[in-house]
């Protein structure tokens, strides 16, 4: 009956972020928040594990004041309780700060048998948090999982790597990160959506985590963020005759010396 904690990040939906043509700066004014894509897989996996093995799932997030918008959403996806840390420092936090904050929070609310993360956050995609948490908490780490199961205290998993897969197992507690293919996140039902408002959420104040000021100073800072724009010819053939289009494309490829 594992006690699980899933760490999720509330990020901007990158599909709503526009690149301003004047200076290539990013305009996120229309961007809505979302639970980072792969974190939905982590939440789902925790929910599935608990449905199968018993136990309980909590969720934990660290973000700016906007993380409050995520609470109902995450609770409708399975976790029984969500802990949230809302602090302006999250705006510029790097993976080091994020891991420091999350690890301190886990020490306070834990212990947990299984701590789940997504494979990477959809904004920064640092792919660091899980391994950093394992280092800070002094427990093992299994990353990039395609399959996960728990039997008693033993956690078994299949990792999917560039050159193949590997089976690994370890005794809890452990930090894991999951790939998106591990499951298909459920679409919360009406009852789950309504039930979410009745589940508890607890704010954790950053000041109560006993962190030193330097733990909150990012070591990596981002600057000169510029949207990426493609310079392409954009010659598009869209006549109703596919054969004509194909002939024109063939001519185009020939002019590029590709055929």
């Amino acid at each position, binding site marked *: 009956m594992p006690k699980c904690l899933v760490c999720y990040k509330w990020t901007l939906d*990158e599909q709503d*972020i526009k690149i301003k043509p004047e200076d290539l700066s*990013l305009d996120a004014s229309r961007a809505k928040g979302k639970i980072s894509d792969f974190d939905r897989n982590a939440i789902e996996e925790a929910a599935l594990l608990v449905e199968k093995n018993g136990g309980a799932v909590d969720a934990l997030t660290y973000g700016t004041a906007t993380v409050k918008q995520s609470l109902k959403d995450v609770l409708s996806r399975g976790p029984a309780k969500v802990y949230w840390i809302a602090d302006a420092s999250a705006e510029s936090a*790097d*993976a*080091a700060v994020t891991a420091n904050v999350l690890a301190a929070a886990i020490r306070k609310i834990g212990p947990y048998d299984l701590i789940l993360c997504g494979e*990477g956050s*959809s*904004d*920064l*995609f640092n*792919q*660091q948090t*899980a*391994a*950093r948490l*394992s*280092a800070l908490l002094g427990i*093992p*780490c*299994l*990353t*990039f999982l395609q399959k996960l199961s728990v039997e008693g205290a033993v956690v*078994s998993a299949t990792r*999917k*790597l*560039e*050159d193949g*897969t*590997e*089976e*690994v197992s*370890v*005794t809890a507690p452990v930090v894991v990160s999951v790939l998106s293919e591990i499951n298909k996140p459920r679409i919360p039902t009406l009852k789950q959506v309504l039930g979410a408002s009745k589940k508890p959420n607890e704010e954790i104040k950053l000041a109560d985590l006993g962190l030193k000021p330097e733990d909150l100073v990012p*070591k*990596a*800072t*981002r*600057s000169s*963020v*510029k*949207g*990426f724009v*493609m310079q*392409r*010819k*954009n*010659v*598009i*053939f*869209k006549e109703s005759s*596919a054969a004509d*289009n*194909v*002939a024109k*494309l063939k001519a*185009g490829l020939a002019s*590029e010396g*590709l*055929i």
Partner: protein
Amino acid sequence: MPGIIIFSEDSMLAAQLMTPALELKQSLNQPITALALSEADAKALAALGADHAVFLQSAGKWVDGCAEAIFAQVNKAAASIVLIGGTLRGKTIAAYVAARMNAGMTTDAKTLKVENGKLLATRVLYAGLALCEEAVVLPAVATIRSRTFLAPPAAATPGTVESVTVETDARVTLGAVSPTGDTGVDITTAGKLVAVGRGFRKKEDLKLAEELAAVLKAELACTRGIAEDEHWLPIARYVGISGQTVKPDLYLAVGLSGQVQHMVGCRESKVIVAVNTDERAPIFEAADYGIVGDLYEVLPLLTAALRK
């Protein structure tokens, strides 16, 4: 004296890391220590100009298990910069080491330099929507993906090689390891690619793309969904932020929408061609040439036309 450390369990990638390491050595005037999991790798890296190469000898087979041992070496060398090959294992080890060092880390750096006591890297944000500069205070860790740099030529004077016995993480038990098939092709070196996406309705339909690829002398590539969700093609063939980065002369994208997470892996291709039914699909903005049309109609015609 502080130094630069490099590590990758992938021999080719380790050699590529020597290029930025040598550049950084120029500006920092610090020696390079290369860590390797085989004696051959250690020797090869010493030959490429690592001042010192250390073969980490262990009984454990689980690569990630050597993270703590790598941290010990880093600590010993008082490393100012640690460059680690950006494979999935490498990233796991790098993040662990960075946390143990209490250091910052930049993921998938595209360029690297040192300025005012900071490691400056360019990298992507929002899965490729934007580029940014990330400045990491020293000591700093960076991961670098395969083929970001070319391996340097052999050095005039090779460095020294040492072998140390290390302990690996015994808490994790490694079971069966299954290499992926299809190891023969490497889409990252192909001159032409036909990339397929979810516009294909079933696995058998990929025949259409295979036939086109055959006349073009191209290899098949795909989107993440085709490899990871449908398992129609091996994982080594998918392109994007979490897949491969390719720069072929021709990238012919069929039935794929062109989301930024995919395009970031192929946008440096010389010519991009799109076939898609949806005129508003983002792939057309990223394409030099495109046909708005049904791939089931267009591909056979195109294959036939190119055969002539």
